[in-house]
């Protein structure tokens, strides 16, 4: 008996396959997001965990000026310390053949004998150092790829001012540099900044550091307290120029991986909830219509002795078939999206082997969640139908009751056309169906706004960063602070239009019990390159007394203007001072503390020194400038605004494009789906009414106008809701990006809104057009017959 009922199920479904498909696709969007996000979380977490474990990623990190290797034994003796690895880490510039500008990087030492205790490398291509081999270097993969370097190629490193050529032995990856960027930079610049490894002896000799270390990593014993170990380590290293140890939570590469997983977690909940709610409404609308059409069939089934339970089960199966189809589409879609995103992640994150690993539990969860949504959406309608007494169900539904629409009662009725009246009254009679269609269209509009808001916000940050606050073309940093002579050398480089020296120093800022380790920036008071902008676009000069902080840093410290902060310099003579907070800067990237160059030098007590300089350069002589810069000794790093911009285009912009494509697809599917569903239901429920209009002399176009008017009214209602919803989504997501690395302002442009509306309008129009084509097939003769 039930087998026959199932046969009915399939035949009914094949008749309404368009609508079932529309529901399944909307559901699939949410499930794809769920499966994609959860699988990516799983992929990133399991891959990084395995990588960290296999390559012994350290748990505590410290930088210092220099300490004898013998001190490592005392580090090992700190209670709670498991493994310790000391080594060298220095900043260098290098000369890449074919690259005009000097690149810079971080060179690290590797033990002569065997693998390091911690932070072991992964050899991607080429070989490790040959025993006894000289002048060999290992290069990070991101840098090698960006500069098309292969094992066997040569690069020239300026080690402590001496230019030395090295042969690339191998291309490697490190768990310390999954996200590889210049310290403090929000965006990677793999073309001009890389990580390199040299044998300890070679590096130590070049920098007169033989028998010493300036960088330290360690792991913790099973039940050790990270905080206690860091405190002990800091006091041990302080005499050696220790700059303050930190745990993984402050490790720049680890933070980026962790933040990405955090974003995915938000996606894996927020979007599926919204999509599945709309899908649940759609299932409800489709089934409610089916139940209306099948009132008599239900009555007959009951008359023949089918129980309520069997009938409820039969109609729930309709919903479950759509759920199953949605889950299959969602799984396929989630897999495809996930694989695309993994390709994008490979651009940002360097793992030995990052694969998309489908999270099987996500599929089960997807099925369960969507089944719940669908059943919740239809259960009451199905139960009501099942409980109808057979005799009552056998009678056709009583005629629909209408009344003048609210709109007409306002007195503008006489200006309304008949098709407008029919449309408005229909919408008012079925407010829930109208509401769900509006909700779906609003959702589609809303999700379109998010990626463009993101793009616009990033553009504002970059514009602010590159055009407003940092107006130099090129910045150059020295390995060690130097006196006036370096300043003169900079001024004589070819093509220099303006040059402004700066001084940086690592310091810990304390206010009350809170503290942050940052780089103090000493700027010339008359300078025009790095500008400090206070809220309200007012420019502040670097203060002679006191300090100006990034608003975010003031927030982190809980300090307000007028408060006195404690500055503990972590390098040089390690002096401390109490200074007033005299202003906050409205900057969007990093945690910055500004004061005047002379004030900083006074604080440091080392005389009139500079850490580097920023330049504006005659565009025609840029190449000369960069070529000459390569010969300047003791340059530690070079940052070129133009190449940062280009790099951004290739990475960040490409990622945002991918995300936008995904959102565009989802918005299109949802807009298409809800309009299709609404129009099909209207067409089916009112085919008799529409056929009557045709019979009494209305043309196809005039009949279509009735349905189109309805859809247009719904769309017009949906647009403001969608823009509001999108503003909400964008606000929620963009303001989430308020980290110490970067803070996105909320930027909502008319262009963004217009594009969202346009996409949804096009999808809805095509969808509506597809349904209206069915008006051709409207059976005029059936209008004369008895209602079904």
């Amino acid at each position, binding site marked *: 008996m039930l087998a026959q009922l199932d046969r009915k199920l399939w035949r009914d479904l094949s008749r309404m396959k368009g609508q079932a498909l529309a529901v399944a696709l909307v559901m699939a969007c949410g499930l794809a997001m769920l499966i994609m996000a959860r699988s990516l979380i799983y992929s990133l977490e399991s891959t990084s965990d395995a990588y960290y474990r296999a390559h012994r990623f350290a748990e505590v990190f410290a930088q210092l000026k220099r300490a004898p290797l013998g001190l490592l034994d005392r580090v090992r003796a700190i209670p709670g310390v498991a493994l310790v690895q000391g080594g060298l880490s220095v900043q260098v510039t290098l000369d890449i053949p074919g690259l005009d500008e000097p690149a810079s990087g971080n060179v690290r030492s590797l033990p002569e004998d065997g693998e390091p205790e911690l932070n072991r490398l992964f050899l991607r291509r080429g070989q490790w150092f040959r025993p006894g081999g000289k002048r060999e270097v290992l290069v990070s993969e991101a840098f090698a790829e960006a500069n098309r370097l292969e094992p066997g190629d040569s690069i020239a490193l300026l080690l402590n001012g001496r230019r030395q050529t090295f042969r690339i032995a191998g291309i490697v990856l490190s768990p310390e540099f999954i996200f590889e960027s210049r310290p403090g930079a929000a965006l990677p610049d793999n073309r001009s900044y890389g990580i390199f490894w040299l044998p300890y002896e070679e590096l130590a000799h070049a920098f007169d550091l033989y028998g010493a270390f300036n960088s330290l990593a360690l792991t913790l014993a099973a039940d050790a307290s990270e905080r206690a170990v860091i405190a002990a380590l800091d006091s041990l290293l302080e005499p050696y120029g220790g700059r303050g140890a930190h745990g993984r939570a402050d490790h720049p590469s680890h933070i980026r991986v962790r933040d990405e997983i955090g974003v995915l977690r938000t996606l894996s909940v927020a979007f599926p909830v919204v999509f599945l709610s709309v899908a649940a409404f759609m299932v409800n609308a489709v089934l409610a219509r089916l139940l209306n059409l099948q009132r008599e069939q239900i009555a007959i089934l009951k008359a023949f002795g089918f129980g309520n339970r069997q009938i409820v089960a039969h109609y729930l199966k309709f919903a479950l078939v759509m759920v199953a189809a949605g889950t299959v589409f969602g799984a396929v879609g989630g897999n495809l999206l996930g694989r695309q995103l993994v390709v994008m992640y490979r651009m940002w994150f360097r793992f030995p082997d990052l694969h998309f690993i489908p999270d099987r539990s996500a599929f089960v969860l997807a099925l369960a969640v969507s089944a719940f949504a669908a059943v919740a959406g239809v259960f009451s309608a199905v139960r009501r139908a099942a409980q109808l007494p057979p005799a009552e169900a056998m009678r056709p539904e009583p005629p629909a009751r209408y009344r003048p629409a609210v709109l007409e009662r306002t007195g503008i009725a006489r200006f309304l056309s008949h098709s407008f009246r029919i449309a408005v009254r229909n919408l008012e009679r079925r407010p829930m169906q109208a509401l769900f269609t509006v909700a779906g269209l609003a959702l589609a509009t809303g999700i379109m706004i998010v990626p463009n808001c993101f793009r616009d916000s990033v553009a504002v940050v970059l514009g602010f960063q590159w055009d407003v606050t940092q107006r130099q073309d090129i910045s150059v940093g020295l390995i060690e602070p130097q006196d006036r002579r370096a300043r003169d050398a900079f001024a004589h480089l070819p093509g220099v239009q303006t040059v402004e020296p700066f001084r940086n120093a690592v310091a810990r800022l304390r206010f009350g019990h809170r503290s942050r380790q940052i780089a103090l920036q000493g700027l010339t008071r008359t300078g025009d390159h790095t500008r400090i902008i206070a809220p309200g676009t007012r420019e502040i000069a670097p203060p002679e007394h006191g300090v100006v902080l990034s608003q975010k840093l003031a927030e982190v410290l809980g300090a307000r203007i007028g408060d006195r902060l404690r500055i503990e310099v972590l390098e040089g003579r390690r002096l401390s001072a109490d200074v007033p907070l005299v202003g906050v800067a409205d900057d969007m990237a990093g945690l910055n503390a500004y004061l005047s160059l002379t004030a900083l030098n006074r604080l440091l007590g080392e005389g009139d020194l500079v850490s580097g300089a920023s330049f504006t350069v005659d565009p025609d002589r840029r190449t000369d400038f960069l070529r000459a810069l390569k010969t300047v000794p003791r340059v530690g790093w070079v940052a070129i605004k133009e190449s940062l911009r280009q790099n951004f285009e290739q990475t960040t912009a490409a990622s945002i494009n991918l995300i936008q494509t995904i959102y565009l697809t989802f918005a299109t599917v949802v807009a298409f789906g809800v309009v299709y569903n609404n129009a099909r239901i209207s067409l089916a429920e009112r085919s008799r009414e529409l056929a009557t209009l045709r019979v009494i*002399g209305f*043309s196809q176009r005039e009949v279509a106008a009735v349905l189109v008017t309805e859809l247009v009214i719904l769309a017009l209602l949906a647009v403001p809701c969608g823009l509001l919803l999108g503003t909400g989504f964008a606000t929620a997501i963009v303001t989430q990006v308020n980290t110490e690395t970067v803070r996105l302002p909320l930027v909502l442009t008319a262009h963004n809104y217009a594009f969202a509306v346009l996409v949804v309008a096009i999808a809805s129009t095509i969808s509506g057009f597809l349904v209206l084509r069915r008006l051709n097939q409207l059976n005029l003769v059936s209008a004369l017959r008895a209602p079904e």
Partner: protein
Amino acid sequence: MHPVRRPPLDGEDSVNDGRPGLYRRMHPVHESAGADPARPQVFRARGLTKVYGSGEAEVHALAGVDLELHAGELIVLLGPSGSGKTTLLNQLGGLDGPTAGELWYRDIDLTHADEAALTHYRRDSVGFIFQFYNLIPSLTARENVALITEIARDPMTPEAALDMVGLSPRIDHFPAQLSGGEQQRVAIARAIAKRPEVLLCDEPTGALDVRTGIVVLEAIERVNRELGTLTVIITHNAVMADMADRVIHFSDGRVQRIHANARRARPDSLHW
């Protein structure tokens, strides 16, 4: 704007509305006999055939119908269900095309008319009345009629049309607030408001009780009489044959016989 036409007196021409010959010759009431050759011909069918399906499932709904209908006639098309009478009505109304044969409405060849031409034909010349009224549920009585008067060439006002079927007091009610008979009278008002040349009624009283059915038939008869509209009523109710000028007996897709009433019975004299 469009006052209800005054019932023409015997021998007097109806108002000249620019459609030559259509309303000119009003027939003497309750007097028509067989097809009156003096009345202008409105429909002419020759060998009209309609086949549904193919092969073994082939059904000859119309199996070669020859027929002529004239202006101002009240025709009752009588036949059992499945006899093909609705199929014939659909052909006359331009809702469906024949498989073979020809059908002329005045000088328009309905057999070969395209969709747009048929829409125009329905809009300008035909009024339909259905068994189940088929009102637009979201429009009031007045608006249901106004829907048609807006697109018609020379309509009467909705108020006048509704007045003709005696529904002025219920003019602002929605279909759900009207009884079946009232709904059918709104449907009649809707059909006649455009002053069609042809009024096609498919079992107009089929869903109504006797008393209400008679009220509806009176309205149809009045329209035929006062406006001179060629009226075709399909029914399987033989009693209604008495109110016709001519009765066409239909079965197996063919006209079996036609008989003319010497005198049309008044609808209120009918009983079933």
